[in-house]
């Protein structure tokens, strides 16, 4: 039995809720797209592989500036480094993992987060289609990307 749409949407809700908490509800969701031929990767990415009730992957990818703004909003200081980018992404993926595990329990397994810059070290198999939810904050873009196996539809 595949996950219901509202369960899938919970991944996006959890991510946006966390970002809104930091940004004071300034996150803007743009119109989503379905991509068939390519994956979108920005400067920094945190990715989970899904198994159990759903198979595939989800990831959050964003620019350095977006993470800088998040870091500044959270820690109220401007000094920012590559290491800080990694830390902010760890916070985001940790929040997603915590929220998802709390909701779904052991029925949905999330891999350890893979955090990387630019493109993944290990190739990711492109599913037939991916759902891309663009997110904007202070003119900076981020993307929440969901790729489900075809078998998740029936």
């Amino acid at each position, binding site marked *: 039995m595949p996950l219901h*749409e509202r369960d899938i*949407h919970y991944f996006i809700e959890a991510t946006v809720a966390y970002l809104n908490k930091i940004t004071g509800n300034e996150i803007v969701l743009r*119109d989503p*797209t*379905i991509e068939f*031929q390519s994956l979108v990767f920005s400067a920094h990415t945190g990715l989970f592989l899904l198994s159990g009730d759903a198979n595939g992957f989800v990831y959050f990818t964003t620019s350095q500036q977006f993470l800088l703004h998040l870091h500044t909003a959270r820690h109220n200081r401007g000094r920012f480094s590559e290491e800080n980018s990694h830390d902010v992404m760890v916070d985001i993926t940790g929040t997603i993992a915590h929220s998802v595990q709390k909701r779904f329990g052991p029925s949905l397994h999330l891999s350890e987060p893979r955090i990387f810059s630019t493109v993944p070290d290990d190739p990711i198999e492109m599913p*037939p289609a991916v759902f891309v939810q663009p997110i904007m904050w202070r003119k900076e873009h981020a993307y929440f990307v969901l790729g489900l196996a075809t078998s*998740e539809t*029936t």
Partner: protein
Amino acid sequence: MTGTEIYKRTAAYEREASTIRLHAPQWKLLLAYDGQRSLAEVALSADVSFAEALPLTEKFLTSGWIEEQPITLDQYLKRTGASDVSAIGAAVPPAVVLHAPRSETAAAPPPPLEPETPAAPLPPPLMPKVATPPALSTPPPPATASEIKVQQGPMRLSAVVDYITSLVGNTALGQLLVYRVFLQVPPELLQAEDISSVHLVNDTSLIRSESLKKAIARAVNEVAKRPLPDGVYAPA
């Protein structure tokens, strides 16, 4: 709003029409409300995406230019194809006000696939609260693969997206249902038609390939359990 609501223009609209200033696409939508067709059908006919139609409809309601068109239980039963109330197991007809039929012979639009608990709170109802009607009819059974038929004209991708989205009654969840549908469409057919992505609001693509039209119609049938309406096809 779920897309099944039916609206008509009001006397206030008639009085104010000469002073109303709107963009042309908004006029097209406003003039399409006829007290006969559902919001989803009106949006399709006006070439306005369902996502765009929702805030515009709310604006028109707030301005008092349109109002919801109530119908009787009898009209509703005719619209849904149920012969009488006993057929649906109700001893006494519930006191409900429902939406109007397009005509007695027209096919009823599919009831929305309401999520059990919507992910986001829905806006307050625009009509006075009425009793929730029982499940009066079951949705039409999905067609078998051999029964899938498509029209000759090109398929408007935006209309397909809006139709699927309207089935759920929640835009965000409806868009994920669209995603599930397209997971079932063979990528090679999309590639052959140069479709590398689908914009879930206002996609301008027209599908001309018969095999791709059939694949999309089949995927909607399988995943959303509904046949595609003829309105998703542009004139040939």
